[in-house]
């Protein structure tokens, strides 16, 4: 076990300040040849350690179709993430274990319309899948991204969103919670915009959503109201984890291990779990 808990060393290749409290760390393995061997699927996560401060769970926010690096987008929220923001800089080293967990059901979403609904830092796991789907664009039909944040400053991946907006094969809808000067588009919380502006096609559509727990809750309610079936609503759960190996018992919801059976679940699966997440 102890060997399984020893991380590999990665170098921070690039650090991108996404919002005042979110940074994306672009990582490469220190050991040569390891980066090529490191395989992950969109939706999987890693255990990221800042030695001396601790280990935290973050999803990989880039797709394996973009080769030679992987991204972790980290919001300053707790003790370890505060240390990460305070102490780490480009060229520094961190520990990585992984990848762990299941991934988005790539086979099931093939040939479907895709609707991504993200809120705040919740776009991070979706971004891995969005990049993957953009790189395999022919496998999918309509491609819609609805993304919201509290303020325009809190929108992550601003440069990448610009690229998505310029891509004629994608439809991108942005929203912020409260009105701001010079904000060109929607104002309102994500579920409201989903119902009033996006008005998605229900037939043959898979919805992938992630955001703060409260946003996921109301988004799922809106999706149900619009007529989406539970198996077509896919989300990724946030639970505290530590080992990632299905041993430490922290992420249990009933008899489910979120780190092994999740973090990606359909709403149908979530409804079978005790209400403890």
């Amino acid at each position, binding site marked *: 076990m*102890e060997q399984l808990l020893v991380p590999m*060393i990665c170098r921070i290749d690039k650090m991108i300040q996404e919002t005042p409290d979110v940074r994306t760390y672009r990582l490469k393995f220190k050991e040569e040849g390891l980066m090529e061997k490191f395989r992950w699927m969109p939706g999987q996560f890693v255990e990221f350690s800042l030695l001396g401060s601790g280990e*935290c769970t973050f999803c990989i926010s880039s797709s394996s179709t973009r080769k030679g690096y992987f991204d972790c987008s980290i919001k300053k929220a707790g003790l370890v*993430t505060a240390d990460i923001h305070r102490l780490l800089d480009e060229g520094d080293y961190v520990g990585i274990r992984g990848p762990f967990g299941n991934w988005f059901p790539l086979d099931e979403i093939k040939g479907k319309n895709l609707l991504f609904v993200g809120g705040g830092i919740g776009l991070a796991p979706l971004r891995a899948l969005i990049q993957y789907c953009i790189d395999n664009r022919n496998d999918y039909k309509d491609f819609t991204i609805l993304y919201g944040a509290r303020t325009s400053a809190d929108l992550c991946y601003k440069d990448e969103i610009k690229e998505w907006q310029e891509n004629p094969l994608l439809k991108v809808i942005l929203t912020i919670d409260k009105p701001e000067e010079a904000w060109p588009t929607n104002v309102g919380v994500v579920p409201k915009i989903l119902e009033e502006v996006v008005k998605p096609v229900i037939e043959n559509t898979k919805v992938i959503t992630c955001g703060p727990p409260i946003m996921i809750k109301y988004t799922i309610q809106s999706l149900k109201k619009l007529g989406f079936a539970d198996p077509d609503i896919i989300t990724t759960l946030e639970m505290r984890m530590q080992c990632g190996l*299905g041993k*430490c018992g922290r992420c249990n919801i009933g008899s489910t291990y979120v780190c092994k059976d999740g973090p990606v679940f359909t709403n149908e699966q979530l409804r079978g779990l005790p209400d*403890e997440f």
Partner: protein
Amino acid sequence: MNVETFVTDKAGLVKFYEAIIANNETYAPVEKFGKFDFKRVLTLAECDPDSPITKTMSAKPLFFPRSAKILKYSADASGTDVKETDEDPLTGKRVILGMKHCDARGLQVLDKVYNWDYIDSDYQKRRQNSVIISSRCDKAETHCFCTSLDYDVENLDAMDVLIVHGLDGKIFIKARTEKGETFLKANPIDPASGIQHSASEEGMKKQYDAFAASFRLKMDYKNVNGKLSKIFDTPEFENVSASCIGCNTCAFICPTCHCFKISDEKIKDTGIRYKSYDSCNNGYFTLMAGGHNPRPVKYRRWRQRAMHKFVYYKERFGENLCVGCGRCAISCPVNISIFEVVNQVATTV
């Protein structure tokens, strides 16, 4: 397995123990401040293989250490380096004397989670290289309820060598696994003369019947398990957990609790990362950095503890995660007994 039962007397058993301790790396219950904990022993005088169950800690730390070093690291201007620790991994060949039946059963239950998917190789080596010698208890103590659960205490194969103290002073020794059989060949017993194999079976049975009749606590396991799986939302969990002070003692001394945490200790540019015991009764156990906590109040944490032991683990791995040893109830500062908790909750349906 059809193996010979060796019959001996008190003096023969002492000789058997002495030979084991002399010829093997042996761990056995050693007394300190009135409690027994498993330690490496060199003579029989240091330890008591038949220590009372109410005062004996679980031998779980020999397989899952209370605190294990994962790695050493150094991080300075010249770069970051991670090294393995020089801590003894406890994976050598050894004999464990005086482990109780419930405690040995606990290891069988833990095997399921440790050998699931990612295999914990250190744990596996510790298991493979340990010979477990266990005496059956003479009588049940106040909080014991092992015979009420989902396993067969009489024919338990969790120990490699079984010792039964017969009612008439005879002592029966029998291998329960192949490992135990090999061990008994290497560490033979002087058999007392003139005792028949059939008589020994009868003697062991009589001892078991007397033991089984001494239980104060009895539970209808199937009924409790079936009812608990349906009553996640009962308010009764609030009543049964009201007096809990969240000290986590129950989890730390439990033979089957296996939750752990990973923490760093830093001294300037170097440090050590530890893996140490944690408990779902700890308020911070599921607290996330953003402030969200799926189990923010005590009754929810107690519900997780009770349900994990009696429902979830059974669903996932087919075994009950409580072995009925009563250690948690003995040590609880506010007298909460898991036996009473699950029975009381089950009666609300």
